[in-house]
């Protein structure tokens, strides 16, 4: 029979905690799926426009920049592909990553009520967040495909790699989000700071314009870890050689251990958070 022991020391064997965490992820597959399904169903049942809302923000941002560019208000360097494809693929990827960053904290926040009442594998919240992101992103990708074909970029074999890069982007964002969740659950400031900071971060990432040839902006943009994700994804989508593939692989390789560490941190922090926020 399964025996559980609760005491103040959390028996800090990182390895053991990780194994338990992964076991819980496995055990709660149905729960993660069900939670994601519930939220998606609820999201679309109470709305007529439904799916449209998933891409209305990136589309709007893209249109603003397409307009600024085509009207000559802003002079942008040549991107090598039709600008609408460049802008939309950028804003779309950006929206996926920012959603991924916010996903763990919003999933945890919306489960506040049950967290303080029922013991269930908390990892399911993170997983359901990822599932929801995958669903929403796949809808967006369909729109991106329309853009690609409409503007005559056409099909490239590397397009098949695009979903993997997109998934890597979600993974990257979720890892970041997972790290800030414990603090963000305690202080509302964290969530606001993230939203605020990301607005600025977008302008040092090649989302709507390319990396300049020289200057401080070039250095910042090249170091920015968001850059290789956006660029690699876009290059695969339109069939250009991926210029930042190495950096991309390094970022993702770093994310794998970081994700597990964040997962352990999340697991340790939940009881502390429940205690402080008990509804």
């Amino acid at each position, binding site marked *: 029979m399964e025996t559980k022991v609760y005491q103040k*020391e959390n028996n800090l064997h990182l390895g053991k905690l990780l194994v338990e965490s992964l076991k819980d992820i496995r055990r709660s597959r149905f729960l993660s799926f069900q939670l994601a399904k519930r939220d998606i*169903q609820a999201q679309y049942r109470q709305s007529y426009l439904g799916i449209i809302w998933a891409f209305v923000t990136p589309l709007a941002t893209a249109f603003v920049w397409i307009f600024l560019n085509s009207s000559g208000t802003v002079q942008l360097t040549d991107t090598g592909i039709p600008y609408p494809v460049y802008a939309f693929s950028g804003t779309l990827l950006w929206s996926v990553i920012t959603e991924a960053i916010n996903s763990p904290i919003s999933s945890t926040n919306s489960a506040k009520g049950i967290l303080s009442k*029922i013991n269930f594998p908390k990892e399911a919240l993170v997983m359901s967040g990822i599932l929801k992101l995958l669903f929403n992103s796949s809808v967006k990708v369909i729109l991106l495909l329309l853009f690609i074909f409409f503007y005559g970029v056409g099909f490239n074999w590397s397009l098949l790699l695009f979903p993997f890069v997109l998934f890597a982007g979600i993974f990257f964002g979720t890892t970041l989000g997972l790290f800030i969740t414990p603090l963000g659950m305690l202080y509302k400031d964290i969530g606001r700071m993230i939203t605020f900071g990301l607005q600025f971060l977008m302008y040092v990432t090649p989302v709507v314009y390319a990396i300049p040839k020289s200057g401080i902006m070039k250095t910042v943009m090249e170091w920015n870890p968001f850059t290789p994700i956006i660029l690699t994804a876009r290059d695969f989508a339109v069939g250009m050689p991926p210029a930042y593939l190495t950096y991309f692989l390094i970022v993702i390789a770093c994310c794998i251990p970081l994700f597990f560490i964040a997962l352990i941190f999340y697991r340790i922090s939940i009881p502390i958070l429940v*205690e402080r926020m008990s509804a």
Partner: protein
Amino acid sequence: MNESEILVKVENLSKKFCKDLKTSLWYGVKDLASGLSGNKNERELRPKEFWAVKDISFELRRGECLGLIGHNGAGKSTLLKILNGLINPDAGKVTIRGRVGALIELGAGFNPILSGRENIYNNGAILGFTKKEIDEKIDKIIDFAEIREFIDMPVQNYSSGMKVRLGFAVAAQMEPDVLIIDEVLAVGDVGFRMKCLTRIGELLKSTAVIFVSHSMPQVSRIANKILLMKNGSEVIGGLNVSDGIERYYQLFQNGDSIIGGNGLIEIKDFKILNDSLNCIDAENGFLILKHNYKYTFQLKLKVKEQVKKYFVNYSFIDKETKQVANFFSVFSDSVFSKTGEVIIEGEIENLILGQGTYSIGVAVNEIKECNSRGEIYLYNSNISIISITGIETGHAPVQFLGNWNIN
């Protein structure tokens, strides 16, 4: 199944909470940081903290039911949260064997705009069922909840009773080894409540149950172990359930009384005398009386000249503020007319009130020629509190003793 198998073992459990939100959040940050390094230090109270649960120990075997009682804020829910693994203790240890089921929040995970059927899956998933299990049980759940007609309607259109029914119906499918119940039966109509109690009764046999309730009749019916908490600490614990319930009632020592009347009669003194006419002194505010003994109620009054004929009546009021017995002088054909300083004694041959504490109210009324009640000279709704002891079981307000025969 081993009779003596211990499923829940709680050893010197303590938990502290913070009274101030901002400080609490800051401690949260510190705890997060120290949580990473294991935080093995002895934990002491930091400023603005208090012990919500202090040094609680008990053991529970399969088939046993612990009644966890105490006034609001005594630490019961905190204890349940630790037992359920939602928060970690600050000292001590909990060992739980087997699957834990908690009836704390019914209908967790319901989304109001989804239908009842969809929400059965949501709730079931959170309670740890697999899809297959829910598929198998869904008809049973719908029947148990008795809402087949509305099962495809959004849950937001359900009445609160229906939501609770559906929630309980799902939870009732659990087959836990340890069951934690926190006051969930307070809702729903009588029929459904009976159904819930029956289901819990079924579970009782094969599980260890921790039952939190403010309804003492329910506790005395279900529990065979008791833990009374006050300010986080154990007041009384163990197998003597009726003792615990008794002490629970005593915690609500309510000295408030309503005093009135037209002022023509004043109370000078009130005493209860025992068989040998010795006055009974109050212990912790209670006069301790023994069941089925003889007692004399002595009332010293100052009666003004205008008063004509009058009678005395006592009433016994239980903790649920229900009048459970009366003692009227007029029914014993005793009506008084003496004025000035008087002492009126009423003797009860056998006080057969059941175990518990009772407030005694007293009133002195005018009685008219036609035997109807006239003016109220005096009343005091709570002149003294008595506690009846000397009878072990039973929580009915009246306990007869008599001669029994078998032929």
